[in-house]
């Protein structure tokens, strides 16, 4: 789809207008001074030239008006085309989001049913080789479900270049995330520590919760049973950091940047996730002029850190 951008369209018209108006202005100015000179010279021959020069001056203003009119019309036309193109783009974005929502609903539901019936099959009654096949089916369902869910979120934010922000309490956000994922953590007997109580406000969009949800669910996924996840918020002068510390296997130095790239995944094995989640997280954090990265946890595992400016207008500074 052809998309017109206002600055480009107007730059062309502005350039043409500068040349046309400038040339005509110079011409009229020259003629005016010539006319004044002829009137004041008293020369008879020159006086006879004054009238035609005066006529020429009047006539020369006609193309000037025409040029100004044309430029005005051109600008209106560019603006109209731009509006139409933007409407097309908006419609296309809305359709894409709607399509993603329909896909999410209509694909996740049968996958839920499939997954439910697979769960109902008694494992102890299966032959060893069939058991392996069932594990593959379960993992396939989990990956498809995860892909659909993440793709739906990505479709909503990937075209965005800016986000509306409001005062958001990070402590409340984290509590929401813990509420959502409590059962998942409990199923692996993972202890969750989050001691921050004082409200900590930043200028952010609600979508930032997707980042925290993703990091916390990843921490659960990659943590062995009976371990601990620590979530912490630290406030600095102009920025805030949210830490997710797990006791999983950790991430190799060579993978620490790649995991934030679409479709990269840190390991193969019986864990779900296809790498879209961290790509989305990075995109959302960058839309907030923030940073996201991973470090080694000194007590084993990883620490994912999200750094956000407290005031949305202030970019995050490097340490």
């Amino acid at each position: 789809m052809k998309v017109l951008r206002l600055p480009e369209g107007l730059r062309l018209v502005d350039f043409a207008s500068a040349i046309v108006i400038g040339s005509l202005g110079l011409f009229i100015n020259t003629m005016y001074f010539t006319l004044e000179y002829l009137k004041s010279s008293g020369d008879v021959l020159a006086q006879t030239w004054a009238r035609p020069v005066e006529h020429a001056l009047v006539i020369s203003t006609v193309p000037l008006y025409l040029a100004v009119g044309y430029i005005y019309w051109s600008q209106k036309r560019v603006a109209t085309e731009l509006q139409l193109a933007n409407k097309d783009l908006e419609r296309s974005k809305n359709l894409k989001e709607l399509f993603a929502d329909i896909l999410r609903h209509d694909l996740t539901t049968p996958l839920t049913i499939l997954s439910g019936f697979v769960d109902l099959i008694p494992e102890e009654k299966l032959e060893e080789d069939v058991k392996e096949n069932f594990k593959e089916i379960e993992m396939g369902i989990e990956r498809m479900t995860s892909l659909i869910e993440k793709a739906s979120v990505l479709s909503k934010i990937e075209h965005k270049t800016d986000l509306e922000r409001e005062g958001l309490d990070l402590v409340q956000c984290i509590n929401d995330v813990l509420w959502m994922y409590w059962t998942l953590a409990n199923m692996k007997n993972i202890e969750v520590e989050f001691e921050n109580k004082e409200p900590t406000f930043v200028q952010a969009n609600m979508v930032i919760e997707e980042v925290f949800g993703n990091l916390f669910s990843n921490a659960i996924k990659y943590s062995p049973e009976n371990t601990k996840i620590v979530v912490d918020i630290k406030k600095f002068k102009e920025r805030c950091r949210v830490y997710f510390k797990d006791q999983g296997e950790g991430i190799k130095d060579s993978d620490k940047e790649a995991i934030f790239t679409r479709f990269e995944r840190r390991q193969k094995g019986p864990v779900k996730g296809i790498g879209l989640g961290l790509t989305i997280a990075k995109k959302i954090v960058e839309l907030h002029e923030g940073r996201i990265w991973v470090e080694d946890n000194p007590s084993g595992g990883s620490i994912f850190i999200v750094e956000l400016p407290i005031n949305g207008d202030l970019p995050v500074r490097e340490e």
Partner: protein
Amino acid sequence: MAKILVVDDEDDVRLVTQTILKKAGHEVIEAAGGGECLKILESHKPDMIILDVMMPDMGGWEVCEKIKSNKGLSDIPVIMFTVMGEMQDMRHSRGTGADAHVSKSFGMNVLLKTVERLLE
């Protein structure tokens, strides 16, 4: 053993949910929509309600608000069980008074575990 009302417009989701709940020893009542759920609640008081969000006649969030604002029903734990798994959806569920929000992508085991936790 608890009496659980499962509300979902998808027949197969109700079938698999009730099969898993019955296997875990619970009694299940079914409703195919929000309106039917409220109708059942006029004559039954289940120990728990599992509610889908996107239903054609009345959405799960609206049903949950009605349940939680009714003094006679507000103490029944409500689990939103939905394909809507984003944090904003969870926040919405929490805002309507739901006791838990389980994304369908989490799977039936997570739903069952949540049921057990809320019944404790």
